[in-house]
């Protein structure tokens, strides 16, 4: 297209205007993203450490961008006061007890401020309010923890190293297991035995299963009314009688117990020598003397017998005995 020399100002005008349009679009897009032209209010938070937060950093509330950092300045001794520009629309949702913390946009992303929490019972935040702050774990803290973990890992791996060395050289049961073929054979046999045991156990469990089934059937029968066991189990009169019998048995057992105690006492006394029966049972000297006495008595009775025989034949008493015999014969 051939542009006439007279039309050049128009072309230049269009060219410049389009350039300015691109500039304005860019400025408005950035302004929109930085919320320069959005109604906002300011909130504050005092942090101990902002971890490299910069002015213009985003502010998130429940994962939604609601503003940007307006100003960062020192406060008090070594604290940092962060002034935030927050959208007016978000004001109704942020409560007085909401907290702020420093986070990051992704794992290695820019630092941001995260507003979270807040109870619905409390009123919403107002302009220039100070939010409570929670110190977030910084990357340095995480690295310090990781360092501890690393040290532990080194210790664990060195332990494993020594264990594997021992195993490899055949030390200990595990080493023997891996390196000694006889051990392996024994283990194999053990496993075989275990297998057999398991098979037996299986059979036992199957049997016990059938036993349990029988028990179940039996208990079912017991529960079923009309048979003697059920009557026995459920009849209250029989039960009361059994209770009475048991109580009587208990009394009898008590009496027997008492009787046994007495017997025990008597036997103890019999064992002692401080009583007549005890002496009779336990003292050998007395036994000998009694023996002698009995012997003497035997001898005496023999002699007395002879004497009495003699007396019967005595003339004084002969009549009496003849009379007695006569009476007997009659």
């Amino acid at each position: 297209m051939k542009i006439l020399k007279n039309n050049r100002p128009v072309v230049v005008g269009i060219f410049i205007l389009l350039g300015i349009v691109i500039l304005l679009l860019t400025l408005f897009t950035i302004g929109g993203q930085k919320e320069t032209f959005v109604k906002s209010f300011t909130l504050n938070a005092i942090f101990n450490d902002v971890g490299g937060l910069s002015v213009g950093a985003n502010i998130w509330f429940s994962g939604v961008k609601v503003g940007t950092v307006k100003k960062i300045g020192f406060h008090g001794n070594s604290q940092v006061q962060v002034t935030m520009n927050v959208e007016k629309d978000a004001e109704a949702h942020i409560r007085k007890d909401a907290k702020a913390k420093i986070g990051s946009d992704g794992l290695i992303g820019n630092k941001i401020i995260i507003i979270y929490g807040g109870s619905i019972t409390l009123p919403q935040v107002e302009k220039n309010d100070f939010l409570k702050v929670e110190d977030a774990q910084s990357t340095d803290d995480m690295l310090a923890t990781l360092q501890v973990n690393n040290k532990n890992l080194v210790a664990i791996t060195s332990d494993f190293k020594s264990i594997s060395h021992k195993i490899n050289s055949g030390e200990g049961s595990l080493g023997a297991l891996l390196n000694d073929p006889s051990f392996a054979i024994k283990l194999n046999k053990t496993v075989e035995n275990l297998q057999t045991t398991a098979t037996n156990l299986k059979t036992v469990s199957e049997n016990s299963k059938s036993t349990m089934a029988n028990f179940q059937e039996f208990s079912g029968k017991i529960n079923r009314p009309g048979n003697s066991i059920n009557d026995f189990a459920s009849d209250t009169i029989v039960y009361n009688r059994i209770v009475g019998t048991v109580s009587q048995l208990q009394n009898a057992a008590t009496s027997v117990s008492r009787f046994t105690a007495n017997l025990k006492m008597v036997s103890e006394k019999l064992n002692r020598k401080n009583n007549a029966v005890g002496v009779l049972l336990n003292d050998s000297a007395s036994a000998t003397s009694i023996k002698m006495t009995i012997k003497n008595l035997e001898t005496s009775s023999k002699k007395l017998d002879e004497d009495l025989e003699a007396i019967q034949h005595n003339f004084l008493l002969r009549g009496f005995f003849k009379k007695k015999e006569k009476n007997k014969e009659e």
Partner: protein
Amino acid sequence: MKTNTVKSKILDEQKYVISKKVDAFFTDIYNVYMFILRFFKEAFSPPFEFKEIINQCYLVGYKSLALISLTGFITGIVFTKQSRPSLSNFGATSWLPSLISIAIVKALAPLVTALIAAGKVGSNMGAELGSMKVTEQIDAMEVSATNPFKYLVVTRITAVTLMIPILVLYTGFVGMMGSYLNIHQTELTSFTAFFKSAFASITFLDIYASIFKAFCYGFTIGVAGCFQGYYAQNGTQGVGRAANSTVVLSMFLIFVEEMIIVQFVNAIR
């Protein structure tokens, strides 16, 4: 005879403050300084050559648009393609729009535009004014009561200074479009997501700094081209030298200015 030659050489050397070359360098600095002063003096004093300024704007701006756009588009695509492997190593290809926008807006758009303009516009100015000088057309204008400085120099420097920022905006836009095309093809990123991510990393200061840079580069190209052409000597050979030294000097000064302005912007960021 020999003694006489040495004596004359000493006498010759005594004509210069330091040496011929060093004195010429400082003289050039003085001349440039006076040239710039004269430009400002003439630029703000009537009569104003608006018609010629617009004509020059057309030649410098509109006529360079195709070349600048193509260069910007290719720059956007190539820079995106080259940056992707580095970012994909970290699994961070989603940061490509941010990276490209920072690179294009902060550095590539002004620099590429200025370097292309130095080559196309600067050399053209140097050659044009140089040939006018050596063919004594400029002297003829002076004789005919036309202020050649105002008509030839002020209009050209003004046009370049005003047009380079506009061209920078076009380059940035086209470069971003080229980058979007490549990212959309590979990562299937939507237009909205791309531009949202791209503008998230750019601040007003970056835009203002780029436009300020573009003004400086435009002024530099204009001054270098006009100065070399306006003071061209030694016939047609001087014309070629003027065109060549305009490009070399402009490019060198552009990089020096880039470095200074970056320092300045970072200081106030």
